[in-house]
């Protein structure tokens, strides 16, 4: 090609351009405000009883850093494979994305991370022998396992006494296999044991535990849960069977199968136990009907579980309250009162009252009561007067013959859920550890210090003064986000067995998200309040004054290597405005 002609063309180019570098012009001296990496708390984390650092977990998961993501979960929750299956996920209800398109599938993602990788428990704190305490935990349910896990991580020596033949408590005996397979549970129990926690099976504990503080025991944690099922409280209620007992027999393989064509069985109650019992009875060949005194929408069970039960063929009879049970085993009449829903009561639920003259009866072959439970024995409850009540646990400095006792689990939490029980065990562990260091007067302040977000629950990372402790507790609200940068997308929960097929066996119904799908779903998380290296601040800075370190500098899993260069930052605030997730704020510059 003849390039010569163009090459020799002499084109005038005299432009307005400084001859010297402008780097000596420290424009930062003009500023009266400056940006600050002010990471804030996310509403999901604040709603999570376990205080998981959800925005960070999803940020890591979206980058394919599954081990790091799971490690973050394990910082706050020893049982992610369990919670990923059975948690009622208040995080999703609080998700800021819910107001934009659909909430992030936090629950399914937790399960996916837990199933996809085998991540060890975080390392335990090293304590000098004098500070290392020996602690006995009564009960190996979620609260007991959690208390042992966190106490062990804080450097203490833990043993768990479990009355039954296997660990897990309600997780093992109260939740059906099709929701929480044994294998998933075993992995989590093994992880707790890997911290040196000894679980002694077949060791029921009695009140003498409190009378006998000796044997080198420094403290006791009571996490027995409910032992005494509540009765229906109507004539003939001795004919009703206990739904939790039936679930336990089913898990042991001891529950009978029901003959085809028999009369339906009634399950009285509206909580998760009622739904679990009905779906279990269905799988055992029965024709279950859930009888509930309020409206269907008032049932406290997880909505998706109710939907799944209906899809499988469970019937629900709402606004019906038992008045008596008559007959004998195998052929009985469940007498019912038709209820009417009225105004909302103090608890926010609509009150109900019987409709006179509309009594009716169901002919059933069995009645299962799933209407709650209470403590089996008085000593399991905190003593009035001497126990310090915290949000989810209680602690008594002298209840065990002068040694401290912490009370955790269903008996001390307002909301009975697996996640709340785990949170209760964690809070009890932190409270005991604080008690050992500062005495009972220091406990409340230490628990307060461990709260990760306004209205949230205790965080192990905050208690241990990890990086999260520097984050503001203020919660990022939807209006704090810059929604211009959010592309609309759909959530996914993963596949599930077809209902007709699911009802035939105890095979797990939910199949979860595959790794690629999980990473994509994790990418839907807006990472509210934390920097996820989106680079908007740097892109929009008119002064090009957001410095970024070389890739890999700093801890990629925690600190993004971005920082305003205050030599040149004029404090215009564009970076903070353009931050899609509210992780930057402007503050007045000191002179």
């Amino acid at each position, binding site marked *: 090609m003849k390039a010569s002609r163009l090459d020799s063309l002499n084109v*005038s180019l005299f432009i307005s351009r*400084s001859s010297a570098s402008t780097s000596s012009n420290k424009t930062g001296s003009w500023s009266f405000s400056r940006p600050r990496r002010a990471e804030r708390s996310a509403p999901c984390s604040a709603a999570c009883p376990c205080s998981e650092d959800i925005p960070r977990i999803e940020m890591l998961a979206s980058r394919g850093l599954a081990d790091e993501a799971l490690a973050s979960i394990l910082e706050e929750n020893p049982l992610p494979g369990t919670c990923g299956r059975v948690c009622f996920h208040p995080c999703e209800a609080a998700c800021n994305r819910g107001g934009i398109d659909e909430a992030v599938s936090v629950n399914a993602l937790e399960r996916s991370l837990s199933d996809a990788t085998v991540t060890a428990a975080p390392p335990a704190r090293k304590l000098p022998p004098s500070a290392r305490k020996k602690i006995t935990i009564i009960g190996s349910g979620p609260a007991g396992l959690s208390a042992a896990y966190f106490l062990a991580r804080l450097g203490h020596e833990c043993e768990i006494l479990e009355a039954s033949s296997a660990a897990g408590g309600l997780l093992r005996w109260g939740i059906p296999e099709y929701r929480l397979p044994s294998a998933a549970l075993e992995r989590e129990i093994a992880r707790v044991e890997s911290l040196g926690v000894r679980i002694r099976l077949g060791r029921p504990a009695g009140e003498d535990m409190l009378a006998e503080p000796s044997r080198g025991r420094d403290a006791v944690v009571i996490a027995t849960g409910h032992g005494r099922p509540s009765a229906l409280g109507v004539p003939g209620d001795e004919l009703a069977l206990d739904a939790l007992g039936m679930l336990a027999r089913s898990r042991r393989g001891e529950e009978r199968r029901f003959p085809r064509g028999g009369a339906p069985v009634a399950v009285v109650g509206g909580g998760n136990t009622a739904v679990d019992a009905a779906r279990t009875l269905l799988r055992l060949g029965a024709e279950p009907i859930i009888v509930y005194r309020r409206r269907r929408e008032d049932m406290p069970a997880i909505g998706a579980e109710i939907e799944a039960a209906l899809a499988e063929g469970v019937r629900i009879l709402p606004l019906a309250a038992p008045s008596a049970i008559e007959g004998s085993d195998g052929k009985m009449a469940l007498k019912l009162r038709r209820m009417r829903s009225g105004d909302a009561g103090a608890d926010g639920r609509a009150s109900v009252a019987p409709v006179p003259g509309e009594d009716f009866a169901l002919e059933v072959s069995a009645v299962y009561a799933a209407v709650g439970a209470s403590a089996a024995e008085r000593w399991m409850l905190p003593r009035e007067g001497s126990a310090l009540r915290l949000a989810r646990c209680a602690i008594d400095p002298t209840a065990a013959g002068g040694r401290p006792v912490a009370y955790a689990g269903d008996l001390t939490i307002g909301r009975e859920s697996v996640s709340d029980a785990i949170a209760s065990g964690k809070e009890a562990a932190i409270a005991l550890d604080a008690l050992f260091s500062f005495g009972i007067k220091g406990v409340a302040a230490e628990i307060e210090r461990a709260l990760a977000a306004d209205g949230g629950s205790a965080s192990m990372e905050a208690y241990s003064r990890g990086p999260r402790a520097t984050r503001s507790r203020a919660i990022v609200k939807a209006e704090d986000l810059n929604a211009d940068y959010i592309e609309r997308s759909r959530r996914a929960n993963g596949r599930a067995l077809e209902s007709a097929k699911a009802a035939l066996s105890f095979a797990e119904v939910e199949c979860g998200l595959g790794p690629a799908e999980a990473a994509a779903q994790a990418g839907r998380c807006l990472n509210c309040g934390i920097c996820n290296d989106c680079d908007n601040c740097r892109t929009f800075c008119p002064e090009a004054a957001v410095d970024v370190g070389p890739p890999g500098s700093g801890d990629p899993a925690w600190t993004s290597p971005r920082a305003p260069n205050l030599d040149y930052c004029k404090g215009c605030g564009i970076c903070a405005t353009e931050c899609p997730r509210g992780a930057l704020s402007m503050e007045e510059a000191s002179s």
Partner: protein
Amino acid sequence: MTRVIEGSQAVAEAVKLAKAKVVSAYPITPQTHIVEELARLCSDGTMDARFICVESEHSAMASVIGAASGGVRAFTASSSHGLALMHEMLHWASAARLPIVMAEVNRALGPGWNLWLDQTDSLAQRDTGWIQIYVSDGQEALDTTLAAYRLAEIVNLPVMVVLDAFFLSHTYEPVDVPSQEDVDRFLPPYSPKFLLDTKAPYVLGEVAPPSVYMEMRRSIQSAMESAPEALEAVDEEFRSIFGRGYGPVEAYRCEDADIVIAATGTTAGTARVAVDALRDRGEKVGLLRIRLFRPFPARAVHEALRGTKKVAVLDRNCSFGAGGIFAQETRAALYNLGGPPVHSYIAGLGGRDVTPSLVEELYFDAKKAAAPAPESVWLGLREELCK
């Protein structure tokens, strides 16, 4: 590979082949198909480029000015009111000497609200320091967009490739889309003569006091003066690779013509048909298609009209108070160089058809006139609406 595509798509193909790194635009009919296609190419990864969505054409031009200052090829497209809104930034782009390429689809300005062809929008930007090239078909739109980058990067001036609304932007024609390999031979990777670098910061566009401002303006004019030669050289290179080329003007059957009709864009195609028909009837008529408008190719026009008795300029635009703009420019170019008298005609505003018979009417009007009318003659008017 020959493909049947819209004029708009031909432009988008060229932008893709030119490997533009930043596209920023605000949609306006009839430019929309160009930027829709580019948005698709950017989003699906076909182009390794960023499409910057903006809230106005002013910001679109500001965005590409930023991109070009950063040393990458940048593209935008607009029409009519959108181009008018860019006006301030058009001056900035040229004075900053940035080799930006823009497709401008000629559309009428309102009110009355009108989406159709009228050249007043681009011609009103004639003093902004942009090179303007008026193209007549899909192939030329593609080729000229590629050549525009080559030219812009040599003379450091922005280039506007101007297309007729709908007649070109929305018409499907067979277009030879060249291979990337051939385009890469013609258009080497962009090597900016200056760029903003955050590692070695300096000021671009700083204060220019009276002691230097005038020389900067002179530099723009000098670059404009070297543009015709640069365009010719670029055209030569283009021809050597692709086997076709253009030039600042296209003279058709002008050699022995007594009267030459001057037209632009797709209108020149209609005029070509009329010229052939008139020639068949023994009329000594030719066609001069003016492609380059800024800088105005005075010498090329003068050369093409050598020996011609009259030139009749068909304008699809009007500078109110002065008449057809191509006619004014032609008249001004010929005044000192010498040449035939210039007859000015205005037709086909706001998308009204310019038919071969209208071109014949223009020809016979010019032929019978002893001297050009003092004002532009309007053809094809509905007299009943002109009271």
